[in-house]
């Protein structure tokens, strides 16, 4: 059986800067990898390469065993992305945004799919609200609905908890937890230690473009992890 998501020696340079310096990992379908790391470690760059938004300088991404490069379009329906930005058009309603993205992904059953998806994130009654009128928490839920609309097997989340109050965080966490069904492979980048550890199967610490360690989350508790994290950061400083 092939891996849900694989990174093979991913490198990305910007001029003279090595933002990602050789990251490799393999995730089985259903696994959730949380990536922690200080600002500037290259985590967003890594996610952008995994999502096919940015071309790696070298290395390869594989989704469900097949190569997923920037030039090809046929694997993209397998992946969904959530960022700290909403990726939505503020002037349009949630429903209109979903319809647009649904069309981009070539979905034909939008009349049933969109209401289902809205219901699953609890936004049915706000579907006609322009996105810019939504609170941060609701915007993120809408962003998640957008990411999951085409039913991807892989979900990439870049600091989704940014700016969410405790209640909104809790709601978002519930949504993520429901994805732990053995089908969805998830990479979560976050600064939120509690949320990040709680749902993780594996945990990575990215420092200066590399994974300094990848551990099984089962063996970690919060304080143990904090020690590990601070040690890793100090090591590279």
């Amino acid at each position, binding site marked *: 059986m092939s891996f849900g998501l694989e990174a093979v020696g991913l490198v990305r340079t910007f001029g003279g800067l090595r933002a990602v310096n050789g990251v490799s990992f393999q995730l089985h379908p259903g696994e959730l990898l949380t990536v922690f790391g200080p600002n500037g470690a290259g985590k967003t760059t890594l996610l952008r390469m995994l999502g096919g938004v940015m071309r790696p300088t070298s290395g390869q991404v594989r989704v469900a065993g097949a190569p997923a490069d920037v030039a090809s379009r046929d694997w993209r329906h397998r992946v969904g992305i959530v960022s700290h930005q909403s990726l939505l058009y503020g002037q*349009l309603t949630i429903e209109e945004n979903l319809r*647009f993205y649904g069309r981009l992904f070539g979905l034909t059953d939008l009349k049933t799919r969109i209401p289902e998806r809205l219901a699953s994130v609890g936004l049915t009654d706000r579907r006609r609200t322009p996105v810019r009128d939504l609170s941060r928490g609701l915007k993120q839920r809408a962003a998640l609905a957008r990411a999951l609309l085409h039913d991807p097997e892989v979900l990439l989340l870049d600091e989704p908890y940014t700016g969410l109050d405790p209640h909104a965080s809790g709601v978002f966490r519930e949504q993520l937890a429901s994805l732990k069904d053995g089908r969805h492979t998830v990479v979560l980048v976050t600064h939120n230690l509690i949320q990040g550890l709680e749902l993780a199967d594996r945990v990575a610490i990215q420092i200066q473009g590399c994974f300094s360690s990848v551990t099984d989350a089962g063996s970690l508790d919060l304080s143990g992890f904090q020690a590990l994290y601070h040690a890793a950061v100090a090591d590279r400083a």
Partner: protein
Amino acid sequence: MRTYLRLVWAVARKDLLVELRTHERLTAMGAFVVLIGVLFNFSIDTALVRPQDIAAALIWMTIIFGGMLGLGNTFRLEQEDGALSGILQSPIPLDALYLGKVLGNFILLSVMVALVFAVFGLFFSLQFSGNPIALLGVVVFGVVGFVSLTTLFSAMATRSSMGENLLPVLVFPLLIPVVVYGTTATDRLFAGRPVAEVSGNLRMLLAFAIIFTVAGAGLFRFVIEE
């Protein structure tokens, strides 16, 4: 093929929907057209010059300056909340994204062009005795070429620190064929000359439109990628 066209239309439709909600670009372009007409009125001494004689020049210069206003921010919407990443991650082929943007811009600009003719016709009491279909052809082909080129460059401008200020410097030199063939054809048509005299211009404008739409579609991915 049908899915491809559907994707192109999805992008154009979304841009037009946003414009319908905000009216930002149309308002800016519309106000510009009317006000430039006012300024032209004050800057042309009608005792010495007949506006009818320079109508083609006035019209095309307004189309280009006004068009720049509306086209410069083609990709700004996508920058604001990172929607560009969402689109780039999706299966849409990048040339379809480009063509969708071109289509949306063409529709917006067509509205502006209609306004230019209406406003200038009104302000300067312009008479038109030529073939209207030929004029339509000149305008459509010219605007397509203009929009294709400017859409490609506006993607660059959005991603550069110089922003939209860079756009006229890059695009104006390249638009010379459109200005040359567009204004002479418009001039002749306004003067009631026969269509045969503008057929060469029409062909050149069409060639320009085709060349730069195809080139734009092919080169767009190098411009939009990170």
